[in-house]
């Protein structure tokens, strides 16, 4: 069965009636609530979160001893890690130790990179989770 459909132009590939109005919300309203790991998650899942060193915004960069991302090949800087650190490995680094597979000479640079992570950088939420008391 097909009803009258006078309004649809012939050859128009779009179905206008499927468009919906997207309410963007008041500027001050919040649309995101983060469930804190201490409430919702086991320690295991926090320890399995990932911190890329460096993050995608600085892919390929080396990491200076102070934790900043510097040009590839910079003398004294550590090369990027080939895979993201897990939360557990990050915790080991932040304690001043070296997790397996990480060059001990570069551990301090990587630890400082993690400490300098800010909101919005890949891995920040993982780092923040590590700081939370449980």
């Amino acid at each position, binding site marked *: 069965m097909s009803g009258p459909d006078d309004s649809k132009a012939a050859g128009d590939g779009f179905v206008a009636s499927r*468009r*919906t*109005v*997207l*309410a*963007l*919300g*008041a*500027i*001050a*309203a*919040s*649309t*995101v*609530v*983060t*469930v804190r*790991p201490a409430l*919702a*998650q086991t320690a295991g*899942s*926090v320890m*399995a*979160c*990932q911190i890329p060193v460096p*993050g*995608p*915004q600085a892919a390929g960069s080396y990491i200076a001893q102070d934790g900043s991302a510097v040009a590839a090949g910079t003398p004294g800087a550590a090369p990027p890690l080939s895979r*993201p650190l897990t*939360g557990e490995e990050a915790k080991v680094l932040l304690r001043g130790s070296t997790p397996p597979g990480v060059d001990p000479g570069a551990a301090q640079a990587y630890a400082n990179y993690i400490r300098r992570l800010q*909101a*919005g*950088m*890949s*891995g*920040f*939420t*993982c780092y*923040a*989770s590590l700081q939370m008391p449980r």
Partner: protein
Amino acid sequence: MAALRYIADAEDDVRAVALDGLTLLYHAPSGTTHIVASPAPEILAALSEKPADIAELLARLATHFDFEDDAAAEAIGARLVELEAAGLVRRA
């Protein structure tokens, strides 16, 4: 000055469950769960692996949605700040 550009992780990295008008998101890279309301899921989908500034993001969303807000750019900017603070988007 160039406008800030944002990007979200691949959809494979974010497990989404619709929940009675809200959406539960499990962000695997951070191991964190978020409860989000519209338009957050729509923004994340539009930015998934595709960086954009606010104007580009609005243009992408406008291909699927109409907006009822007069101050769409300001509202989208506020949503991006929230999503960035939650670690769901980052600066590209």
